[in-house]
């Protein structure tokens, strides 16, 4: 039965009511139009502006920056539409897989050839430990937060300072702008608060002292035990220090033009708990313990929109400091028996 043309499409689960062929044709038409506009723009500029004037003005070539994006976006979109025409998702995925298996790119691929869709462990094993085999790298979100705070503080106070200079110069010249003075007051107060918050954040981030974790082997396998060494330095009175093994599922999806990410904790297994520690620079805290990966646990997984991530989470509560959290990612490989621990 022929399908009537709909002016709107509706998603029902994994299906869409619109025509995929019509969608691809529309996409190709749009890309072709952009390409045509860009080419016409380039030719017009060359003939009417650039070639007659380039000897008098060398910078006139910069006008090409206007139509060139149309050419690149339209051309790229048109090529993509032609390549995807009548090409299934499975065939495209097979072509991508074959390309990634080429010799020059194999070592830099995100996942090893023997374990597709499992992240490479080499990025986590390139730092040897002092007592155990490997020192795990830390993922520090606080560093990025600090970088963001510094940038914001510099930009905000820089702009406020600029306007302060203008206001001061007008006062000194005998023509004060009182409206500018009034408007500047709240901006100046906010800028001073931003500086105070930044200094506090720097102290919180650097005052606790570094944490490091060493492990006897990596990557990890479900059902096996590993020796762990946890170290915390600084000058602290720690009320509580917890080490946990955590597994997270992470899923990204498009909602309109936004990309949203949802994270869910699947497993949170306590590994170590210490209380009432006195840490000083001469005697950093060190504690060995056993880390057991649950048998039957799902291995680490990484794809474009979905991930399963394992990590060691260290949470501490020290007197005079806000609670701190340090995360050390680990990779769990599948067992050779495919998830069944023998």
């Amino acid at each position: 039965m022929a399908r009537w043309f709909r002016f709107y499409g509706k998603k029902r689960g994994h299906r869409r009511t619109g025509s995929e062929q019509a969608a691809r044709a529309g996409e190709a038409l749009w890309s072709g139009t952009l390409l045509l506009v860009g080419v016409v723009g380039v030719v017009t500029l060359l003939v009417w502006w650039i070639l007659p004037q380039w000897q008098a003005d060398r910078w006139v070539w910069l006008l090409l920056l206007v139509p060139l994006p149309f050419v690149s976006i339209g051309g790229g979109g048109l090529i993509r539409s032609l390549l995807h025409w009548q090409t299934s998702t499975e065939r495209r995925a097979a072509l991508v897989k074959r390309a990634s298996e080429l010799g020059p790119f194999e070592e830099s691929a995100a996942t090893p050839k023997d374990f597709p869709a499992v992240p490479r462990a080499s990025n986590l094993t390139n730092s040897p430990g002092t007592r155990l085999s490997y020192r795990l790298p830390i993922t520090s979100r606080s560093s990025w937060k600090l970088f963001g705070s510094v940038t914001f503080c510099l930009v905000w106070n820089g702009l406020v300072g600029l306007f302060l200079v203008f206001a001061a110069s007008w006062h000194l010249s005998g023509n004060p702008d009182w409206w500018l003075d009034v408007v500047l007051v709240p901006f100046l107060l906010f800028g001073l608060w931003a500086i105070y918050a930044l200094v506090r954040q720097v102290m919180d981030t650097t005052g606790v002292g570094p944490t490091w974790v060493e492990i006897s082997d990596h990557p990890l396998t479900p059902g096996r035990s590993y020796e762990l060494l946890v170290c915390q330095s600084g000058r602290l009175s720690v009320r509580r220090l917890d080490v946990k093994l955590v597994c997270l599922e992470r899923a990204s999806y498009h909602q309109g033009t936004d990309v949203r990410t949802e994270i869910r904790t699947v497993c949170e297994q306590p590994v170590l708990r210490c209380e009432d520690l006195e840490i000083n620079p001469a005697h950093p805290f060190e504690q060995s313990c056993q880390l057991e990966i649950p048998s039957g646990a799902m291995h680490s997984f990484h794809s474009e929109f979905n991930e399963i991530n394992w990590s060691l989470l260290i949470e501490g509560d020290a007197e005079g400091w806000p609670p701190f959290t340090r995360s050390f990612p680990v990779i769990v490989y599948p067992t050779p028996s495919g998830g069944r621990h023998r």
Partner: protein
Amino acid sequence: MSGPLISIVVQGAHRVMQPGDLLSGQLQIDSVGPDEVQSVEVSVLWYTEGKGDEDLGVSHFRRYTPEDGSEIPLCELRDFSTTLPNSPLSYDGLILKIRWCVRVRVFLPRGRQAVAEQAFQLGNVPGAVVTIPT
């Protein structure tokens, strides 16, 4: 006119497959004239389901066209086999699921396609149960 009838038989689909196992089976396409089938694609693949956008990875892919030179018509009974990889294993999580299947896609005239798939399980990973101590 109804579409083609695609039959996929996977040997041992009722049991759990393990990494390294040989996955084999047969496929057949009925209810369609031999001249109507432009090409057939057989894939052994994994895909994700759940909250996130779908990801897909192909372990085995084979495309059959009339120009292959094979004496077997495209819609006749055909064998396929492949060795299953070490990962990713089938997984039933909270917001993410990983499924394995054999998918057959038949390309027909005027841009029409017909798809059928037969699921199977790779590995013994139990379904995710939230284990967070209170």
